[in-house]
């Protein structure tokens, strides 16, 4: 029996210990660093200050943060607009075909995301496929400047993160109780009403989970904006990276990261509340 206790304590202790040392502790450190003062000599100086947070609202940086939020939000919206009809199309497939469609969706996700970004870069270039195609058809006479613009960054983010939007939405549409839609139909709701009043609210957890999985990483993907957006400073990720690795202003970088974490917390809260609300209304949900 004492062996069993040992086994139990070992398995619980190992993971708890790991998470405390490599997740909890480091994040507390970042929180601490974010309220300290920058010191060019020794990285940080132990003087309490909210200066780093204030600087996030400094017009120079507020612009980066705002642009980054906007870019990530645009990418998320675009992902949602693509993923929702796509997920519905997969659910509409015969059951035996669905794994094939999902497999085709994951396949690129298993390849290096840097290489995928690079692949997109080639397509968007002045002599890339998009410009050559548009010129061949005669829509444009001169190549469009796509690369090194915000459009390219948004497309890059969508390209990398799309599967993360599809999966949760697919799961929630798949779980949808079709009888509810039939009931709405019998009660006289038209297709649009059924979609807006029944389907959309019931798949909200999937939508929020997907948005969470796209929006948050999108803000941090500095290599996408490096490759597709030129050397411009447009994502919070680039800001944090520069502050930490180049300028070495850790408190400021930490403050930006804490802000991102708070944003994540808020979105997680929204997600939990949405799934709980649906659980109460008797929708089919287990997690």
């Amino acid at each position, binding site marked *: 029996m004492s062996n069993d206790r040992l086994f139990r304590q070992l398995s619980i202790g190992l993971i708890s210990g790991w998470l405390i040392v490599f997740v909890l502790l480091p994040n507390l450190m970042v929180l601490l660093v974010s309220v300290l003062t920058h010191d060019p000599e020794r990285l940080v100086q132990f003087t309490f200050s909210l200066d780093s947070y204030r600087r996030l609202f400094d017009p120079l940086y507020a612009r980066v943060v705002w642009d980054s939020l906007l870019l990530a939000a645009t990418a998320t919206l675009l992902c949602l607009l693509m993923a929702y009809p796509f997920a519905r199309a997969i659910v509409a497939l015969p059951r035996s075909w669905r794994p094939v469609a999902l497999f*085709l969706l994951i396949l690129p996700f298993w390849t290096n995301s840097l290489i995928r970004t690079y692949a997109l870069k080639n397509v968007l270039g002045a002599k890339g496929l998009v410009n050559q195609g548009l010129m061949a058809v005669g829509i444009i006479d001169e190549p469009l400047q796509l690369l090194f613009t915000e459009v390219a960054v948004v497309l890059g983010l969508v390209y990398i993160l799309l599967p993360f939007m599809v999966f949760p939405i697919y799961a929630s549409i798949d779980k949808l109780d079709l009888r509810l839609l039939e009931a709405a139909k019998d009660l006289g709701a038209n297709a649009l009403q059924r979609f807006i009043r029944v389907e959309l609210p019931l798949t909200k957890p999937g939508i929020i989970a997907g948005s969470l999985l796209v929006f948050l990483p999108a803000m941090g993907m500095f290599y996408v904006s490096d490759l597709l957006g030129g050397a411009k400073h447009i994502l919070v990720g680039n800001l944090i990276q520069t502050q930490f690795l180049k300028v070495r202003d850790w408190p400021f970088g930490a403050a930006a990261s804490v802000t991102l974490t708070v944003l994540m917390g808020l979105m997680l809260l929204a997600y939990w509340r949405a799934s709980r609300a649906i659980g109460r209304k008797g929708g089919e949900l287990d997690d």
Partner: protein
Amino acid sequence: MINNKQPLMWLPRVLVMLGVFLFLYVPLLLLIVNSFNANRYGFQWDGFSWQWYLKLFNNEGLKVAAGHSLVVAMLASTVSVLIGSLTAVALFRYQFRGKQVLQSGLFVVMMTPDIVMAIALLALFATIGIKLGFISLLLAHITFCLPFVVASVYARLRGFDHNIIDAARDLGATDAVIFRRILVPLAMPAIIGGWLLAFTLSLDDVIVSSFVTGPGYEILPLRIQSMVRVGVSPEVNALATLLLAGSLLLVTLSQWLTWRAGRARPQSV
């Protein structure tokens, strides 16, 4: 939602699917084609050539980086599978104080943006004085792989009948024996799947690695990053093609395992 009575109802769906798959695959296919293209810039087809592959195999720095990446990915996925499987079993079998906290914690780690984790780990390593390089990289990779392994194994365990364990207990099996002889074999497909997922996550990571590795230990994604940053580099096309082939193999293997597991367990949801 399945309503095929109306004619042409399927048309928009087919178009949506086609559109998404074209968007996902055309850039990659172009990359593969260009890896065999004699033309350096790939704007036109100048005939078939192996030259980029040859250049790739002669790039010593790249080979070293690839070796480092493989070592880190192998070790990180193996360690995270060991800890992750134990965790999944603990979550499945035991009721304990803080279980909810542990589960939420794992979920939060999974959701945390890479950049946030990256600087947190950098702060940790800098404070406790771990030199940036192999060790710091390995610890970081294990950390971000863990929740995915736990989720993968736990999802499979959840479908099991608790009675199997009770029966084993009645027959005198200890927890360690139950783990080794019953739960691990039963969850094997998910464990292998989790290992493969961790392996790919580790190989793919750019953000965390760029913060926690040092100049003495270069890894593949960072090497690729510096290669593609400077502009056109057809070797990258060749490398991409090889990596694509490799991941095709891995993903097929893992899907096949999941599929086989699903067939072996028809009572599951």
